[in-house]
């Protein structure tokens, strides 16, 4: 009898969205509560891992038509780029700044360059983890 993964796949559909949301939350809130780019990235990656576990490679790739190597590379560029960015302002390399703004919709919001840096980190983590898992899985 052929395996019917209907239960797994159906639940995964919900679960993946919870994980993704949670991942983004962890990534963004890391500055004040546990979390951050790494953990966020790892959680996002595990959501994708879950997709691979419950579906097959081709299906996932069709849904996420990304070259994860390049995702990772973009992440690294972003992370290093924020460092370089501070050079443009004459500040020491990797200087982070933060400020509080009153935004029309969001209210009093803290904006910090760390978030950009961490976005890079998160992207890199996602990219790398998925690259590794995909590469191994695709190997005959």
């Amino acid at each position, binding site marked *: 009898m052929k395996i019917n993964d209907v239960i797994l796949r159906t639940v995964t559909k919900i679960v993946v969205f919870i994980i993704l949301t*949670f991942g983004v939350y962890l990534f963004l809130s890391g500055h004040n509560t546990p*979390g951050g780019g790494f953990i966020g990235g790892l*959680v996002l990656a595990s959501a994708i891992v*879950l997709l691979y576990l419950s579906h097959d*490679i081709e299906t996932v790739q069709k849904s996420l038509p990304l070259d994860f190597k390049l995702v990772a590379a973009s992440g690294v560029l972003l992370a290093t780029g924020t460092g370089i960015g501070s050079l443009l302002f004459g500040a020491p390399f990797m200087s982070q700044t933060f400020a509080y703004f009153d935004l029309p919709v969001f209210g009093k919001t803290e904006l910090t360059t760390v978030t950009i840096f961490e976005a890079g980190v998160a992207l890199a983590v996602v990219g790398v983890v998925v690259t590794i*898992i995909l590469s191994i*899985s*695709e190997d005959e």
Partner: protein
Amino acid sequence: MVEKILYTALTLFAITIVIALIRIIKGPSMPDRAVALDMIGVNLISMIAVISIVLKTKAFLEAILILGILAFISTIAISKYVERGVIVERKSDN
């Protein structure tokens, strides 16, 4: 009083983990171990919740959710490995 109860609960959870560990070591089959590992994960969730109370902190509530997520993912992976020997499949394998 409350604290004593909580520490008792923690001890009981820990004992559960010990028992599950025995199952992991004894097996005999791999699914047995997977079941036990899953059980450890779920118990750890409880423990974190209790420790959070003891330490009076909300810092570990994320960990509860994460642990839930990951215990799930690990179990899927292990089951698939036991079942098919491959955990990520190609369409052709299906």
